[in-house]
């Protein structure tokens, strides 16, 4: 639009458009400020206090010192790292494999499979845990125990012994919701132009060559995204540990999220819980930065 009027009205017109922009953002910004930014700032302040609802006392860095000296905190970090290493790469691999298997199908069949794989995300985590508790029943009549009984293995105390408790949570994660990742991978796969495959076939590439040289490089941004969000989510894991084992036996499955929850809502030590949650946030941020540095140098979103 050609502006032929005086400069003052010209400014007003542009301002008019951007005002709408800011107004729309303001709504989301307000929600963000109230429910995300304010609690983070509040947690930062509480982490320097011994919090009581009727009046807190300032204790400085004592909460942080206690946290770093606490053996349980380091154990929970170790548990969380082990859990992350065991679950995230496997989840990526499984969702990638399933996406590759779905992509050759017709459109309606693809949609059906996508819906089926996405269904667990809709189910309540508590309801899922009740079923899994039943599957992991420690007596001979438990479902998993019946299955391994077929191979002659003695019935295991899945959730009650340190050796198998972490494994049980990991298996539960392997067999659970990959729906989101599958849908994202499918969307990315559909974005690869067919001409690449045709060119590769002309050069005599087989399925694995195509996979290695075309699909995986094209999917690098998606993989990085899923890896980063997967690790962030896995570091914050809480629900399964809380519902299935309660952190036991003997803290074998106590994750950092569960530890923070216990400190805050069981022992009412909000100051220490805030300190631990901020330390966790810093750890996650550092890991994400490292991932972007090493894997995402050439990735543009």
């Amino acid at each position, binding site marked *: 639009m050609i502006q032929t009027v005086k400069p003052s009205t010209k400014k007003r017109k542009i301002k008019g458009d951007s005002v*709408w922009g800011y*107004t*729309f953002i303001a*709504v*989301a910004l*307000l*929600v963000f400020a*109230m*429910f995300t930014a304010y609690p983070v700032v509040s947690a930062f302040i509480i982490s320097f206090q011994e919090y*009581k*609802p*009727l009046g807190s006392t300032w204790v400085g860095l004592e909460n942080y010192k206690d946290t770093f000296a606490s053996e*349980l905190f380091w154990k929970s970090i170790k548990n969380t790292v082990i859990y992350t290493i065991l679950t995230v790469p496997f989840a990526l691999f499984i969702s990638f494999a399933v996406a590759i298997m779905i992509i050759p199908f017709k459109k309606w069949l693809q949609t059906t499979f996508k819906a089926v794989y996405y269904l667990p995300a809709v189910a309540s985590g508590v309801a899922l845990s009740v079923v899994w508790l039943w599957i992991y*029943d*420690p*007596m*001979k*009549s438990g479902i998993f125990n019946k299955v391994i009984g077929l191979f002659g293995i003695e*019935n295991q*105390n*899945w*959730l*009650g*012994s*340190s050796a198998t408790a972490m494994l049980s949570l990991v298996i539960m994660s392997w067999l659970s919701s990959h729906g989101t990742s599958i849908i994202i991978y499918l969307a990315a796969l559909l974005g690869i132009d067919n001409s690449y495959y045709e060119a590769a076939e002309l050069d005599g590439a087989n399925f694995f060559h195509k996979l290695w040289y075309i699909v995986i490089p094209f999917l690098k941004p998606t993989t990085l995204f899923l890896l980063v969000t997967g690790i962030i989510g896995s570091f914050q894991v809480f629900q399964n540990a809380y519902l299935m084992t*309660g*952190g*036991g*036996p*003997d*803290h074998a499955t106590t994750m950092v999220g569960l530890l923070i929850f*216990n400190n805050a*809502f*069981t*022992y*009412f030590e*909000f100051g220490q819980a805030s300190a631990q949650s901020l330390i966790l946030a810093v750890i996650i941020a550092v890991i994400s930065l490292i991932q972007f540095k090493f894997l995402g140098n050439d990735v543009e979103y």
Partner: protein
Amino acid sequence: MKKRLNVLALILAVTLMLSTLAACGSSNNGGSTATNKPSNGGSAEPAKDTIKALLPPVSGNFQSNFDQMEKEFNELYPNLTLQIEPASWEDMTQKLDTQVNAGSPPDIAFMGSGGISKYLQQGMLMDITDVITDEMKNDFDAIPYDYMAYQGGQYGFPAYMEVHALGGNQKFLEEAGIDWKSVQQNGWTYDEFREAIKAGVVQNADGNGNTRYGFVFATAGVASKDYLQILAKSAGMPYFFDADMKYTYTSQNFLKLLTAVRDMIDDGSMPKELSSVDAGKRWNMFLTGQTMITGKGLATFENSANLNNAKIKANDGSAVAGSIEAQYIVLPVPAFFGNDYVPNTVVDGYVTFRGKKEPTQEHKENVAKAAYFLASGKVAAQTNNDLFSAHITETARKAAESMEVNRLPENVTAVENMLSHAVANRTDIPVEKAADAIKIETEVIVPKLQALLANEITPQEMYDAVKAAAIKTFGEDGIVQD
């Protein structure tokens, strides 16, 4: 046109935002305690007031009676409204803790008296000593009434006093040659108990390779604190602290108790998967005949067993899958190593809370009236009858005379016998010490017990871990050393 669309879209966005905030608004209004109009000097009519109560399903029919209770309370005090918010047992603590930490708890919450020290430390409990009338106080039995007191203040009224005991299957007990009537009257020692449960083990009891165990105790989930707590009471450690305020779980009795726990599993009398047995599983095992004795057992389990028996007899398919008819027998916990039998008596009741604002004297009186209404008379009579638990107020005893109860008379006598051994509540333990003891229990004792039950650590290792944590918290002088 474009502008109108913009405005419309903006209104929609703001509406969305406001709907997320609507939840905030209602919970803020919920908790304020000082919103009543002050009554005028010359006015004869008492001011209107609302009392909020957060109540779990105390007994089977409790929550379905809420409307009736609110109506009856309003008839009794026309200017007062009782507003009851229901909660499940699982989320009761969560809901209460969230409201307490937000500074706007309900006026009354139903919970165990053991939690009083935790909330007192937060400063959120309301002392109602000065608004309790003599009539109210004299209605209650002395021992349970004192359970709701702490360090000089009275923080509510007790609803019932329950004994945590064990429950046996009459047929299996008699098959194993156990004189349960004598046990009910005279108790048993640990050695007698150990032999008895060994005798109760039957290999391949159902023909499918499943063993019938002598003894099962729930140790997983919400029941995880029960096992040691209940046994420790009769092992010379009735409280966390002795008369000199020293932590008692570092004595040799505790080590002997841990060894006994391990021995009962190694004997084969208890399942080796004990650490995964939760409250639901231990009851299921009792009903399906997989165990002779189950724990912990409350008197009300007899009611559950009778109901299931009726369903089996009627053959209507709603009975527990694979269950058998079982007559529930109340049995006391054994006494360990020559110590006296001390029953784990638990008093649950209606605890009174305050918000951030100081409550008015009038509101305090009204809350006390509401708590008394819930803890005595018809409401208490109905609840306690449903729970098969003893009445602790005169008014409830009177009201219960006309109500019917279907219990085995030997069980009634057994419970009364156990209650007669009840010890008074300790109200002299400082809140910080009590909170520290609870923290050691949750952070060290329960997790280590799970490992002990799974045979991953020895009793000596667990004892050492508890001792180390106790020394760290209370110092070398703050623990019992024998």
